[in-house]
């Protein structure tokens, strides 16, 4: 390679593009000196909090990361860094000193499944093969199915879709099952609100998942594979299609792959907006062209799956790990993690955290390290309250249990779950009843309706939570919620019903006093529940600038120039828009007078 070449990589995954990376890319493309700069569109490096992200690698191999880059910044990077060799300090996303704690964001991670994300060009198969791509497939075809399965067993890979079922076992069962043809399906339905691991992998490194699916197909003796991708992920679908065309052209897909007897085809099916279709039996129904209603297991899909034939279903991240394990050997994977949870796990870190993004950690790292060392702590500067893992199926982990190691066993023990990788950080201002209500609302909408407890039980629980959030909870409500939650768990057939009470049950367990405050005193300690708060104007600081009046959708604010404004609390809908509009901190949220004091007033 020419030793005067600068390499410029720009992250063009969904979140980068949403933040404006395309125009940054175009600026480089239009103005760079092609003899000295090689421009590479990449996927997501996981540093979502400072997208658009530009990496500049100098001819000496030194790399720097620029964050929040605008087209104007891009010009400056070209003029100053690339033309004159001077790093543009004020645009750096990370300090130049790699030992600086900010680098913990990367230094504390172990990128295995994500090793190519943000590094290679997802739309170029050569970029993938240069990074060792399709070597895992080659090696697998030489080893044969039995040894592939053995390798995965030794690696200790467990399903990353949530349940953590050993992948080797699933493949073995499907391989041994009688019936032909056999199918493999990649579950890319990623419906948990707050999770974007699978989207990022598909957008940033689609070939790794395709290679994983090919190896799965070969190992279990399948001839057809499917990707089931959420329709909300158009870019992931587009990049998968491009990648599939490329593998077909490279003869890695089709008949007699790499001159062996192995022939395999892959199709893409788009989801149509139903969370329950992430559940494996519902997903299969959906591919078959029906309503996605889960069915009873056994028989498991390994025996009787798609079109009644043996089918192995694996998650995107699970499959992305496979080619690496095959190529680099099982030890490269199993050396990370804990005794029973080997390897790494990708998390989508979001919520009130300074450095939100996609991170991959070795199993067993504790919650505090994840939130503070990697995530950089709480973005609002307020105290850390809890994290929530596993979305609507998961639970919350209070700050007091911050030392808990993140692996399947430890999370299950405290009532939370690993889940597929959504991880939400919450601060003091988050109301746990509001969070529980949010997830239950989701569960009620997404229940397919087949099991009575799931269909009606979630509705009932939501009604109770709603009334609690309105200050009309009854003292018996806590017991009813706990009881109903447990009944929904045992009375539902699929994982949706079995897990959706979790957000309520874990908040009840760890934040019971918050429920009691709502019920007994009519107070929302986080000041979020609209029926229990008031907005007031702070007379001393109000400058009657009129901004709040303009922002108010219900015209509840009035006043005269020179005098403090007032909010009419009967018209006010507590939307909080005035608070956002105020530049002088002159609007305050207060709790309503407590039930207790009201009662006393009545007596008087």
């Amino acid at each position, binding site marked *: 390679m020419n030793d005067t070449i600068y390499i410029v990589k720009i992250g063009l995954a969904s979140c980068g593009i949403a933040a404006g990376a395309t125009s940054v890319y175009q600026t480089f493309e239009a103005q760079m000196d092609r003899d000295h700069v090689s421009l590479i569109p990449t996927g997501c490096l996981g540093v979502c909090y400072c997208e658009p992200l530009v990496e500049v690698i100098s001819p000496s191999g030194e790399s720097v990361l620029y964050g929040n880059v605008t087209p104007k910044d891009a010009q400056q990077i070209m003029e100053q860094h690339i033309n004159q060799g001077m790093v543009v300090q004020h645009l750096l996303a990370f300090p130049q000193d790699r030992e600086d704690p900010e680098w913990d964001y990367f230094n504390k991670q172990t990128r295995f499944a994500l090793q190519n994300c943000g590094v290679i060009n997802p739309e170029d198969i050569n970029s993938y093969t240069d990074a060792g791509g399709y070597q895992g497939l080659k090696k697998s075809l030489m080893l044969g199915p039995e040894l592939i399965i053995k390798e995965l067993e030794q690696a200790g890979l467990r399903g990353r879709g949530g349940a953590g079922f050993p992948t080797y076992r699933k493949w073995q069962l499907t391989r041994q099952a009688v019936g032909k043809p056999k199918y493999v399906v990649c579950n890319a339905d990623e419906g948990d609100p707050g999770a974007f691991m699978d989207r990022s992998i598909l957008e940033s490194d689609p070939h790794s998942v395709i290679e994983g699916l090919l190896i799965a197909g070969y190992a279990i003796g399948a001839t057809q594979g499917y990707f089931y991708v959420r329709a909300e992920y158009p870019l992931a679908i587009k990049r998968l299609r491009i990648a599939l065309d490329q593998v077909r052209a490279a003869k890695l897909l089709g008949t007699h792959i790499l001159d062996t007897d192995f022939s395999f085809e892959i199709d893409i099916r788009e989801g149509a907006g139903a969370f329950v279709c992430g559940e494996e039996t519902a997903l299969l129904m959906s591919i078959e*062209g029906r309503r996605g209603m889960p069915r009873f297991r056994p028989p498991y899909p390994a025996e009787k799956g798609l079109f009644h034939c043996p089918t192995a279903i694996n998650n995107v991240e699970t499959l992305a790990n496979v080619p690496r394990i095959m190529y680099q050997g099982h030890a490269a994977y199993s050396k990370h993690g804990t005794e029973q949870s080997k390897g790494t796990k990708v998390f989508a870190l979001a919520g009130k955290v300074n450095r939100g993004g996609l991170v991959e950690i070795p199993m067993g790292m504790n919650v505090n390290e994840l939130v503070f060392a990697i995530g950089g702590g709480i973005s609002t500067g307020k105290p850390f309250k809890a994290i929530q893992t596993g979305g609507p199926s998961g639970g919350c982990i209070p700050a007091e249990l911050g030392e808990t190691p993140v692996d399947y066993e430890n999370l299950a023990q405290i009532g939370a779950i690993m889940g597929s990788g959504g991880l939400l950080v919450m601060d003091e201002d988050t109301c746990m009843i509001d969070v529980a209500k949010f997830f239950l609302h989701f569960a009620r909408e997404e229940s397919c309706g087949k099991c009575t407890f799931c269909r009606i039980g979630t509705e009932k629980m939501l009604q109770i939570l709603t009334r609690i959030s309105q200050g009309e909870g009854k003292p018996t409500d806590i017991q009813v919620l706990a009881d109903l939650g447990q009944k929904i768990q045992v009375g539902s057939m699929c994982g949706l019903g079995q897990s959706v009470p979790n957000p309520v049950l874990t908040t009840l367990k760890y934040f019971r006093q918050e429920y009691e405050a709502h019920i007994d005193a009519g107070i929302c300690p986080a000041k979020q529940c609209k029926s229990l708060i008031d907005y007031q104007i702070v007379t001393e600081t109000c400058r009657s600038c009129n901004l709040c009046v303009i922002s108010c959708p219900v015209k509840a604010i009035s006043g005269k120039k020179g005098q403090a404004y007032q909010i009419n609390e009967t018209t006010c809908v507590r939307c909080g828009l005035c608070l956002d509009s105020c530049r002088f901190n002159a609007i305050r949220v207060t709790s309503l007078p407590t039930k207790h004091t009201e009662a006393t007033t009545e007596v008087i």
Partner: protein
Amino acid sequence: MQDPLVVVEKIVARHRDTPGAAIPILQGIQNKLGYVSPLFLQKVAELTDIPASDLYGIVTFYSQFRLDPVGRNHVQICHGTACHLAGAEKVTDVLEHETKTSCGCTSADKEYTLEKVACIGCCSLAPVININGKIHGHLTAEKTKKILKGITREKDEGEKG
């Protein structure tokens, strides 16, 4: 414009060999025509051996399908967890107020369709909305209003020019 029923015929023909074709056919129709009306369902039923009742069952089960056309601006408001925490409700209030439409509906002038959607996976930009395929992030009430103004301005200019 092409007869929609001819479009339906073409899409059905393309999926003759697809196993379990119902959903890809309906998605194809919605992509091309913007929605799947009962009339289109009837046509699909005639051309395939899938009963119209099954098709209707599918369309009403999956939230992606629409039985009515959308407005000129299709606004999807993300209600994923991160967006919820970051104030998706507020953004929804602003949008409903400014467009005089409620979620799940199309405005009287057919200008806006507002729709709540589950996570679109841009959590670090929360709260986000997707207008006609373009994602807008880190929204505040002000920013949301500005975006809507931009759309109206574009339309006015388009009509003048």
